[in-house]
């Protein structure tokens, strides 16, 4: 029995995942087609990248609630730069990333220096950004040829090169965002598993004081975790803007919760019980696959959040519930 539970904790999640992959394919053979595979992957990249970002803050026993709104404001800022200001797309990318870094830095300073609890600091930041993104365009979405405040028409447009980031495909098959996602995932996995920075981030999450007494500048690492979270969120925002090709004021909705859910599901993968890059990626792919398969089997769209919730709760039971309780 004990062995079975240990096995279930370690591989249960992956077995369920493999089982549903086979099950969907048997019921609906087109599920297994390459084009469907990539459509699943494309569908999850934005949330997946955000999940990788929030993983860093979860590792240091923190939280970043502002990831979704950071992505959203980057959608707005890159649209504004190209459409309203009629500037080169490189500025759109650079400004977005700069904004992501700044938001992360402010979050980090609020938490580490001003000692505001992480949830509250990033909740405040989330509100601030959600409001801020509406201001340049006076609350309106930004699209090519939109009417400006002075009555004239916006002259700029989304650059083709920029749109390629969200809509292009390599070899006419692999979507560019998927490639970005995979590269990011591999780099982050490597950093967390094989470098001293990853080791120290995890150690801080385990016992901050002990790490401090080992001579590590803990504050620097914690701020870095939030800066990385903000930066990665801005990359997600850029890809999102490139994919939808307009500055949609509602584009950030739902991103935060989906990303956090994926990262939490990731705790259950291989029974590591900690935030981890592989887990976050697997978590987000699992949700994407499940929704794709169920939709093919004509599941109504309005049940999607319910399904995600079930998966999350089940994963949390895998992670925390099955492990031995201590007296």
């Amino acid at each position, binding site marked *: 029995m004990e062995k079975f539970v240990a096995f279930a904790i370690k591989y249960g999640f992956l077995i369920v995942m493999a089982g549903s992959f086979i099950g969907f394919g048997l019921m609906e053979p087109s599920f297994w087609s390459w084009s469907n595979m990539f459509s699943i992957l494309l569908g999850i990249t934005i949330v997946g990248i955000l999940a990788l970002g929030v993983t860093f803050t979860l590792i240091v026993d923190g939280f970043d609630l502002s990831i979704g709104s950071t992505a959203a404001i980057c959608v707005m800022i890159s649209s504004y730069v190209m459409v309203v200001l009629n500037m080169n797309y490189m500025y759109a990318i650079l400004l977005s990333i700069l904004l992501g870094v700044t938001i992360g830095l402010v979050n980090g300073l609020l938490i580490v220096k001003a000692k505001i609890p992480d949830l509250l600091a990033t909740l405040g930041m989330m509100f601030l950004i959600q409001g801020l993104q509406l201001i340049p365009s006076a609350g309106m979405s930004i699209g090519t040829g939109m009417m400006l405040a002075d009555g004239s028409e916006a002259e700029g447009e989304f650059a083709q090169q920029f749109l390629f980031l969200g809509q292009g495909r390599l070899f006419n098959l692999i979507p560019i965002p998927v490639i970005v996602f995979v590269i990011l995932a591999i780099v982050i996995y490597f950093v967390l598993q094989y470098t001293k*920075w990853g*080791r120290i981030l*995890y*150690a801080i999450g385990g*016992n901050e*004081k*002990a790490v401090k007494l*080992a*001579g*590590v500048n803990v504050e620097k690492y914690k701020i870095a975790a939030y800066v990385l979270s903000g930066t990665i969120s801005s990359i997600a925002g850029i890809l999102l803007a490139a994919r939808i090709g307009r500055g949609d004021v509602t584009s950030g909705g739902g991103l935060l919760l989906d990303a956090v859910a994926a990262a939490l599901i990731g705790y259950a993968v291989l029974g590591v019980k900690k935030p981890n890059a592989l887990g976050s990626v697997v978590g987000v792919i699992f949700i994407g696959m499940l929704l794709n398969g169920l939709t093919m089997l004509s599941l109504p769209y309005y049940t999607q959040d319910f399904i995600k919730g079930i998966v999350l709760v089940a994963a949390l039971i895998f992670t925390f519930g099955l492990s031995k309780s201590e007296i």
Partner: protein
Amino acid sequence: MTDKRPIIKAINISKKFGATKALSDVSFDFYEGEIFSIVGANGAGKSTFIKILCGYYGDYEGEILIDGKLIKFESPRDAYEAGIQVVHQSIEQGIVQNMSVAENLALEMIISPDASFVYDKKKIVKRAIEIAKKMDLEYLDMDKNIQDITQSEKQMIIIARALATKPKLLILDEPTSSISDREAAKLFETLYKLRDEGVSILYVSHYLAEVKKISNRVGVIRDGKYGGLLYQPLEISQIVKAMVGDLESAFKRSYDEKSGKKLIMELRDLVVEGSKYPLNIKIYSGEIVGLIGLIGAGKTELAETLFGIRKPISGEILIEEKSANFKDIHQAIKHGIHMVPENRAVNAIIPEESIKNNITLPFLDFFSKFGVLAKKNEIKASKRMIKDMGIKCEGFDALIESLSGGNQQKVVVARWLLMKHNIVILDEPFQGVDIKSRRDISKYLQDTTKKSAVLMISSDIDELMDVTDRIMVMNRGRILSNEKTSEVDRDRLLSLITQE
């Protein structure tokens, strides 16, 4: 002793965890009106035995007889109703924060299933005073918040509450671990009084001096088995021998003063925070120096200053005769100053990490190239430390939680002995560490301290007399004495430590 009758008999108690036998056939009797101590090295099965008596493990084998009647313990409630009361090691676990003194005393009236639905403050205070009287605690302000009284008062409240149920057996688990010596002395007075009133007390402690002082009988558990009974007059060496067998007897090493000793650390008129006395201390290579003093003597402040946690108010720290100005821990380590902090759970252990990751933590720069960890080197280094310090574990990858307390402490010490250093400071290194691990650590320090030095801070004089070459006494920020351990007069030292 013969006129007393056993109230509780534990007969052939065994307990398995999976395939491992934690206890096999352990039997002890508890008489009324006596203090019975249970001792055993960490991992010997002492706490398993206590937990069975408290009803935490329902699946034990063997029999527990209370007043001659067989009772099967399935849950802590069973033990409670059978008249067994436990005062746990952690005081914070025994009290309810944010409640008043009265509410904590009369807790049973508030939380028991038959408690009245209406909160009647008058009744609660009345009952609380009744309970308080058992421990002469009536002087406490019943309305005070529990957070505003001292640790030992909190503990007295917990004991008073336990006594209010008229227990047959009162179990005290490491009761002195978080109170001062003076408070402990008061606790012992109380225990004697209770004993003379006929209460049966089961006492569990790491401090063998206490065990020797207060116990009528001592029961030994060794490697999960019955290890014998010891009677007054007790000797510490006899208790140790029963616990762990014959250890390499008193390993007074020959510390050669002349052989090329080098000045490692010098403090010149160093004034640390909270003190107004300048300190002048010299520590040489090959030396193990003890620093002893009461809580508040300034030991911790000094240690923290030497490790870069606090800034000195004035004066100088010299390392190898060169002035060393360090602003933080990182730079102190760069100067070859390493420190094992007190209280490993709070200050040192990284939970849910492997032994290896816990050992190499401060020196990841050394174990990595361009940030990428060289795990092979890490593994080699941790294996070496595991072997040299005799860390009992399943391997370098085992989680730190899988080790006993003593072995966890070895890991924490190994962390700072791993790399070359000038001096390693150990702050209360033997708190909550069993005697076997204590000896292992001491022996390792004595064998390896040649080119470097050790400064060991403790409030336990016997610990220091065992290991050190020289002992300094600190009292209210001043060094009152500094002499070779071999020439130390224990009683004189004690009076220096406590003198006002």
